[in-house]
């Protein structure tokens, strides 16, 4: 294979691209959509994070401004966790709109994460959202088909293919040259989006860590591989079609099936095959388990009667009032431990069902390159399923710490003697409230995001390898006429 021939073919393809007026119209249309997607992504990020930070701070102020109180009152006063958006969500909105934004964290109870964008939606959200990632995943592939369908087929139609081959250009050189030409045209659309994304994350007010840069680089590299695969396939289909018209029809059909119909169906199949419980079912299971393993709100619960006896025996006293710590604080600590363990166990069972539902779409990465890039892109942008679960788990861990901290304060500082009906209630100093830190959301690290996505990464690389193998195969088998 001669480099000069290849680059000549590539340059000629590139120049040809600029010959038609349709190309300029396409450039203009893509620039407009890109501009809007970038603006909208930036706006969403700015508006939402401003709102959420504002209320996170307001809620925290409320917490710190509480006067001297009984610690259990504070456990019910509780805290809020607001889910902050990752800067790269400006690039790929992923599941952001379907995930709740705020959760109330209090003792004894795991509340749902509420106020997702979807819950305020009129039902139009199901058409999807516009984002830079969506342009790269759905629209640019269609543009690539449009730019590439004629690559080889039109030469065949015009009879110039024979001339080229007679002049000593090999099939391999022709295919590589055309693919490189197509790839460079695709880059003309892709590179500006990459630069815009860079601008967006630099504009984000939070400090950019090396982790964000790493995410950005891996993200762009993945999309490069994705477009390499698309360009090679487009040229190969053009080369194996009788006329350019046939090539176009094939490419459009492939786009429809692999970029529109399949992605919409596979998740639905997963959801259909593995049934997930509704909230009421889920809560009923937890309540049942709780009754079985020990309900601290039930004064006659056998588990707590047994605990009481053993605690009294260990301290050598005959009444809970003589214990060196506040006994009801102790009971609540035990109750929180049990109920939280039950919840965590049931929640991870629920997650297992969800993961089974998602597994169909995951494996689709090996059938459909769109699925591979779709999931990888979300994971790297911090807007995927794992990121949301990560938030929920952090919020629950914080809730547990809060409840137990208050229980321990109660055990240590609250008297064991019940106050009379008109006595002032026991309180502890408000100094303790500040000591307990605010909820501080940490994003999933890039390395664990990549570890979660090993399947999709493998799938994407497989596609790249397959495309090269097909190159070799087609250049040996293809016929001139």
């Amino acid at each position: 294979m001669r480099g000069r021939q290849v680059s000549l073919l590539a340059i000629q393809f590139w120049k040809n691209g600029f010959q038609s007026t349709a190309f300029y119209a396409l450039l203009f249309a893509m620039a407009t959509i890109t501009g809007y997607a970038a603006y909208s992504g930036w706006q969403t990020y700015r508006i939402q994070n401003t709102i959420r930070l504002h209320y996170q701070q307001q809620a925290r102020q409320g917490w710190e401004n509480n006067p001297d109180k009984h610690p259990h009152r504070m456990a019910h006063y509780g805290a809020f966790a607001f889910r902050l958006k990752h800067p790269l969500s400006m690039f790929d909105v992923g599941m952001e709109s379907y995930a709740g934004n705020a959760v109330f964290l209090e003792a004894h109870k795991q509340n749902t994460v509420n106020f997702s964008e979807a819950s305020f939606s009129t039902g139009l959200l199901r058409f999807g959202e516009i984002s830079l990632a969506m342009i790269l995943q759905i629209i640019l592939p269609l543009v690539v088909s449009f730019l590439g369908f004629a690559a080889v087929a039109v030469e065949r139609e015009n009879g110039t293919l024979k001339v080229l081959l007679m002049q000593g250009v090999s099939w391999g050189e022709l295919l590589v040259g055309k693919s490189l030409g197509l790839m460079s045209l695709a880059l003309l659309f892709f590179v500006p989006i990459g630069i815009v994304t860079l601008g967006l994350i630099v504009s984000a007010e939070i400090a950019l860590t090396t982790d964000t840069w790493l995410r950005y680089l891996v993200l762009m590299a993945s999309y490069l591989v994705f477009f390499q695969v698309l360009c090679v396939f487009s040229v190969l289909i053009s080369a194996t079609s009788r006329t350019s018209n046939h090539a176009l029809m094939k490419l459009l059909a492939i786009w429809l099936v692999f970029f529109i119909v399949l992605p919409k169906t596979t998740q639905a199949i997963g959801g259909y095959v593995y049934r997930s419980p509704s909230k009421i079912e889920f809560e009923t299971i937890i309540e049942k388990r709780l009754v079985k393993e020990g309900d601290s709100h039930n004064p006659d619960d056998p588990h707590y009667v047994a605990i009481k006896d053993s605690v009294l025996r260990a301290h050598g006293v005959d009444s809970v009032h003589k214990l060196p710590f506040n006994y009801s604080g102790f009971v609540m600590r035990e109750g929180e431990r049990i109920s939280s363990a039950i919840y965590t166990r049931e929640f991870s069972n629920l997650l297992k069902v969800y993961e089974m539902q998602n597994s169909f779409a995951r494996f689709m990465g090996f059938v459909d390159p769109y699925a591979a890039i779709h999931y990888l892109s979300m994971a790297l942008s911090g807007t995927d399923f794992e990121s949301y679960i990560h938030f929920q788990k952090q919020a629950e861990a914080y809730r547990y710490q809060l409840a137990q901290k208050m229980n321990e304060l109660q055990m240590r500082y609250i008297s064991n003697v019940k106050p009379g009906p008109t006595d002032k209630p026991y309180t502890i100093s408000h100094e303790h409230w500040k000591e307990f830190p605010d909820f501080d959301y940490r994003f999933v690290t890039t390395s664990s995001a990549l570890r979660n996505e090993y399947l999709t990464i493998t799938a994407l690389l497989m596609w790249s390898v397959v495309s090269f193998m097909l190159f070799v195969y087609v250049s040996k088998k293809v016929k001139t006429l």
Partner: protein
Amino acid sequence: MYVLIAKQFIRSKVVQLSLLLLLALGIMSVLIGKQFLQKQERTLANVTQHQQAHIARNVELHREIGLLLYYLRFTLIDKPDRIAGLSIGQRDVNPSVQSVTIRTLEAQLHDTDLNNPSNLQSGNLDLGFVIIYLFPLVVIAFLFNLLSEEKEAGTWRLIAVQSNSTLRFLWMKLSVRILLTYCMLGGILLLAYLILSLPVNRQLIAFILVAILYTTFWFAFCFWVVSFQRNSSFNALTLLSAWLILAVLLPASVNNYVANLYPVPESLAAMVKQRERYHEKWDMDKKITMDKFYTHYPQFKKYGVPQETFNWTWYYAMQQMGDDESLKERMAMRAKIKQRENASRWLATVIPTMHTQLLFNDIARTSLSSHLQLLDQTIEFHERLRLYFYPKIFENAPVKSEDWKKFKPEYTRAENNINITFALLPLFLLTFGLASWGVFNFRKTNDA
């Protein structure tokens, strides 16, 4: 002649494949709808059982009615209609079952259902969606080369010479395609009718009418593009781009636009404020809270200001303040959501895909406005419970004096009053306009 055209059309591999794919997806969508309905029914059965057991257990446990009602949850249900299986809409995110205690409502009203966000993101593949999203693609595949295939195969001249009217010939080709698509639509709807055991009522008829008109719109649209008599590649690309714009880009852009134009910080404001306003009362003089409470409910004034450190009258008055003092934010949030809804509806009128989606949801009672109505009814339900239990708590009525068995889940129904004729008008006008323009184009070239 007609039969020949039909035979030739059906023999095409592309036609057979797309019909098969459409049928498969249609059946799948109906099954998904059925599963949704089954899940709802299971939930409802559980709720009824669960509420009874839950009340019985707590009644045994607690001696004080004030403490008992701290725990007791009461359920209000807006049971989805069978037709919701055709257009699931917002019913997956927003629960059809509201379960509340008589404490501060604001802290309970917006609890969402449990959902896999991946499923929500990919969206329910219900029949409504198959009709809105996939049927147009089949219509495009059937029509893009209606005329150009004849021209490109060189048969057009023959036809022009042999038949008296080329328009009549095109009409025959077109009607075969239209008929086949309608048969497909009818077949899938019939399957849905059987599988979901849909009752024949105004809702079903409206759904079918909208589905037919929407499909006809796409025929008119494709016919209009074809009437410019360009080649197959041009038509295919134009139609597919138009589909991309109508079914993907425009709705997505409108969505982003409306979401950013009307963000809903009021929801978070209400959530934070109700907590603040309830909890601060613990540290205030009881008289302040009780005065406010008696201003709201003068009928309870006789219970006075309690002297003990803790008292249930005071406790529920404090809880009430959580709602009363965050009411402004609740109303503001509601107004914001209404604004959102109006904006999307207004923009959707001129975009058939979005308009049809909203119509389907309205017909199936799965829209956002149905949910808003359910929220209103929940507020009413909650108020009713409060007014019933408040005097009992304030008088510390014995727990056993109440017949707890009578508290079964209550059913309600959020009605959607849509004027279907009026709602169909924009679709009808668009269809009629495009079809006439197409005919005009053909007439012009015929005369020339």
